[in-house]
């Protein structure tokens, strides 16, 4: 009996029979069942980066300032030879709950890495979502130490924690005292009484004890950050007759405080700020010459690093009226980490990308310190504070010495002698 040979198919390749179709479908189903979420994408397109920031609500100004760091990043990263990033913008509305839901939505919409979110509470919420979904999250700015103490595998922070900020602040103060020969004996401490101010006040008490500071805090004055009048606070501080004024404030109260210092005719030897406000553009513009001389201890950029003038020039071109600050620096660096890890991973696969971020070793960066590298907790333990001083409407770095581009002015020029 002759077996009939199969008829040749009309097309190229074997003809699909009912049996081969069933076998192929089964194999496909099995492979899909075994690895339902292991979607590996080759590095063929741009990395989708979900940038979640407080773009509205009470933190809107800062969120929009962070966005400037995003806006100028693209061409710089391209020039550095990094692959393209596709930015997806998300708004936390300055709310922790909204931050969480935005992170979920962004991941649902295809974000392959998340960046954000300036605020510690919002960043914590996003970190939980990122960890749950297995998507890497690079924190641009958030100082609460516990975010990187949770054992998270997908969360990375290139920003100092609050204890790191304070430790560096006191180290930089000692460096400035050594440099200028200043030895203030007393300080009066004014701080806002919100979560940030209270936490910083507690931290200052704990961390300052570890440093051999020449001054003693003779009075601590807490005030409401929403206050419209600081005359009483400044009168009380003046009555303490201290050498230096130590402050943890916000922007509006920093302006109010300076006005009161002028009106009450008191210029301390120095104003040492360990929070925002005193170096911000609006402070400089509003107060003009009266804004000169306060020293702020903040995470900052190293003007001597190769990439710093590049970032500064890009910002000056895009936003001529804006001085480069912490918001731009660390938001840019978060994107730098994303682009660098994508390049090395060769894939947008979450696991590969996460491994690549963990292995980050960028020394050609902007912020002060040896570079960007993460420890086992996902924290960059080497990132440092700078001491910056207001000078003629600009900001100069006066410490640490390795990152300084100017000498500190000490004592302050009396307010009454500024013309």
């Amino acid at each position, binding site marked *: 009996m002759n077996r009939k040979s199969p008829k040749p198919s009309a097309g190229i390749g074997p003809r699909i029979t009912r049996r081969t179709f069933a076998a192929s479908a089964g194999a496909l189903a099995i492979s899909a069942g075994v690895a339902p979420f292991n979607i590996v994408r080759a590095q063929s397109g741009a990395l989708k980066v979900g940038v979640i920031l407080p773009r509205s609500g009470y933190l809107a100004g800062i969120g929009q300032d962070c966005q400037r760091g995003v806006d100028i990043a693209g061409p710089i990263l391209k020039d550095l030879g990094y692959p393209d990033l596709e930015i997806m913008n998300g708004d936390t509305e300055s709310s922790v709950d909204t931050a969480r839901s935005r992170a979920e939505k962004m991941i649902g919409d295809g974000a392959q890495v998340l960046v954000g979110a300036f605020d510690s509470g919002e960043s914590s919420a996003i970190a939980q979502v990122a960890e749950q979904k297995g998507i890497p999250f690079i924190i641009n700015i958030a100082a609460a130490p516990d975010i990187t103490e949770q054992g998270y595998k997908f969360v990375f922070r290139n920003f100092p924690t609050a204890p790191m900020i304070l430790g560096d602040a006191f180290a930089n103060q000692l460096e400035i005292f050594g440099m200028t020969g200043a030895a203030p004996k007393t300080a009066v401490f004014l701080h806002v*009484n919100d979560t940030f101010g209270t936490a910083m006040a507690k931290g200052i008490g704990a961390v300052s004890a570890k440093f051999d500071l020449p001054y003693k805090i003779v009075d601590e*004055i807490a005030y409401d950050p929403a206050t*419209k009048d600081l005359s009483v606070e400044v009168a*009380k501080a003046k009555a303490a007759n201290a050498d230096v004024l130590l402050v943890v404030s916000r922007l509006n109260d920093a302006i109010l405080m300076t006005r009161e210092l002028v009106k009450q005719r008191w210029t301390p030897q120095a104003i040492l700020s360990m929070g925002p406000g005193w170096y911000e553009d609006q402070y400089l513009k509003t107060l003009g010459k009266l804004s000169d001389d306060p020293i702020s201890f903040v995470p900052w950029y190293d003007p001597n690093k190769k990439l710093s003038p590049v970032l500064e020039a890009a910002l000056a071109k895009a936003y001529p009226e804006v001085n480069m600050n912490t918001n731009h620096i660390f938001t840019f660096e978060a994107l730098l980490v994303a682009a660098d890890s994508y390049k090395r991973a060769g894939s947008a696969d979450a696991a590969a990308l996460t491994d690549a971020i963990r292995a980050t070793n960028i020394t050609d960066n902007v912020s002060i310190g040896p570079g960007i590298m993460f420890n086992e907790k996902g924290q960059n333990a080497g990132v440092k504070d700078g001491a910056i001083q207001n000078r003629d409407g600009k900001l100069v770095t006066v410490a640490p010495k390795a990152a300084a581009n100017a000498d500190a002015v000490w004592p302050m020029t009396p307010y009454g002698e500024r013309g």
Partner: protein
Amino acid sequence: MPLEIYLNVAISGILTGLVYGLMALGLSVIFGVVRVVNFAHGEMMTVAMYMAVVLFSTLGLDPLIMLVPIAAVMFALGYILQKGVINAFVTRPESTQFLLMIAIAIILVNVLLIIFGPDAQGVQTSYSYDSYAVGPLIIDATKAYAAVASLVVAAVLFAFFRFTRTGTAIRGCADNHTGALVVGLDVSHLYALTFGLGTACVGAAGVMLVLLVDATPAIGPAYTLLAFIIVITGGLGSMAGALLGGVLIGLTEAMAGLLFTPSAKSMFGFAILVLVLLFRPQGILGKAAR
């Protein structure tokens, strides 16, 4: 602490309190006559603050010079608002009036946000940083000017209500609404005039406050609350009570900040309010309900 510190703080509190008093005066006048509680009071003041900011930044006009023109514009706005919108609600339940005024407040805040954005804006006059040294005392020049201007505006308002026929007619409306209608007074017009005067008052206060505080769209509600504390303390409907309440709250907050802790100074303002409500519910200079 040296004695001059106490005196400096007390003077500063009294001067600030006088500006607060003028702001509250507008609220008291409106309630005393129209019997509508203006929940948009702080927001109306913010509108005046922005007018001063715009005139200063674009034309370089000093807020103290622009006080009268801005108060006049605010008067017109208040008059139109009362005549066109609020008048229809005068006889409606208080809850409806509250909702209307809160709606107006929300609209004002958001319009300001759209136009000016969320950032603080202020004026820097040539005397912004001046202070007078009187012996060991240092007096803030801006606060002193603002306080004097408050006293002048309040005196003009007192004189208007006391010595003019229209002022007397408005007082008649406040005392007896039905009687005013019976004798043929144009109550609707008088109500609108009163609302306009109250708005002009708060406008003048806003112009002076912008010398002390930067304007932001969100600043209004805090001042609405402050105005309520002051008029309830001084006596709702009493013009002298509003000024007295302003000075009392300003002085109390300043001294509490000095003697205790500045972060709790608002608490002492509320404490005064609670004491007044407990022991003299009609306010210090208010008339008891009969």
